[in-house]
């Protein structure tokens, strides 16, 4: 007799490994999407009309369809399209691929807005002083662009923290997938409360760290 319930503390304990997985998704996505976004931004601003339009369509699709759908396509695609067997290990990989491709598209547009907001005079001054194009970009332009785009980037990164929960749609064992299972088996809301606290604290830290960077960039006007 007596249905065993679950406490908040136990929920956290049970969810600990899932939290690790969530952090992994978060950091790996940033690791791949931040540089990839810059490359996509270059494509989006390319003088080559074909490349520019392909990238434009890519961004449009990534922004115009749900991330969850993209995740399902990337996870099940190899099976439906090529009849390949999907291994368990591919789940995590599919999550990182889908998230990176999606977030890179958003980051690309943020980079582009920052790069295009730079005054022409900065490029001209650099050119006359002999800076090559890559030197101009990495030494003169990019550091200023980063300062300009930090607030927009913060928004996206906070959304990413919450979006990691979409991995539940392919039953990848990150924190939210586990919390759902736990809640179902214990018929309790408590695991969801634990999940909420986790996301909130995570984002609180993200916001704090980004604010720190913004302050650090305030060394010049």
């Amino acid at each position, binding site marked *: 007799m007596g249905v065993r319930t679950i406490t908040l503390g136990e929920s956290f304990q049970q969810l600990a490994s899932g939290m690790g997985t969530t952090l992994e998704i978060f950091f790996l996505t940033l690791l791949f999407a931040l540089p990839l976004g810059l490359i996509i931004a270059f494509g989006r601003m390319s003088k080559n009309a074909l490349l520019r339009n392909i990238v434009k369509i890519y961004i449009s699709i990534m922004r115009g369809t749900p991330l969850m759908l993209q995740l399902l396509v990337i996870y099940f695609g190899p099976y439906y399209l090529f009849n390949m067997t999907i291994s368990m290990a591919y789940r995590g990989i599919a999550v990182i691929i889908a998230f990176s491709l999606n977030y890179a598209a958003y980051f690309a547009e943020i980079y582009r807005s920052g790069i295009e907001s730079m*005054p022409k*005079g*900065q490029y*001209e*001054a*650099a*050119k*006359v*002083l*002999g*800076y*090559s194009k890559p*030197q101009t970009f990495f*030494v*003169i332009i990019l*550091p*200023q662009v980063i*300062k300009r785009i930090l607030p927009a980037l913060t928004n996206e990164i906070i959304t990413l923290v919450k979006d990691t929960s979409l991995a539940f749609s392919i039953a990848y064992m990150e924190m939210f997938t586990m919390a759902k299972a736990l809640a179902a088996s214990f018929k309790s809301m408590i695991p969801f409360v634990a999940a909420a606290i986790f996301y909130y604290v995570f984002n609180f830290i993200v916001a704090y760290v980004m604010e720190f960077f913004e302050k650090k960039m305030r*060394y*010049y*006007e």
Partner: protein
Amino acid sequence: MKVLEMNHIKKSFGSTEVLKDISFSVERGEVVSIIGPSGSGKSTLLRCATFLETMDDGSMSYLGHSLVTSKNGKAVYADKKEIKEALTYFGLVFQNFNLFPHFTVMKNITDAPIRIQKRNKDEVYAQARELLAQMGLSDKENAYPGQLSGGQQQRVSIARALAIKPNILFFDEPTSALDPELTLEILKVIKNLAAEKMTMVIVTHEMSFAHDVSNRMIFMDQGVIVEDTTPDALFHSDNERTKAFLGKYYAK
């Protein structure tokens, strides 16, 4: 010796002909002012000379090194390496300073000589401190451009242009973004450079300053050089267009 020689320069933006067969040259130690109404092509000429615009036709050489030649009515530029080398022959001071806001004053001045010209760090820093002293900005080494007045920023940008040891210095309306007091500050600096025999080409609207500082004055209008003569001769010109233009300034 001619520091800069430009011959038969033509440049159009779309269907607008901005430079119509312009030829001019600058001797070592000369100070040349270019005046003329807005849209006369004087800034475009400077931007062609500094590779910020590509001329359609014409030839150009610095210190006898041919960098642009005219072939079949088209300007042909030298290869990248030669142009890069040519960029060290001149310095350009912009109307809006265009300092790098994320660099300190010191780094603004020293970064190109160290990073691009690969010169010795200590030597570059010593030279930069000398330039800052000359500009009256010794205490601003570690300031950022955003913390300086417009006049101070323009003096830093002059120091930055001088740091690469150019043979000729171009000024594109260096005081147009400054109030009268700060303008005087900059004009004083340019006068000092003239006294040191720095070769300079100055596009300006400061008529009496141009008269005082220049060996030669050029009046441009509608894409052509109307007159290229001494300051006194220009101010006593019989040319109707010159008189009309200068008259507007005196009327002020």
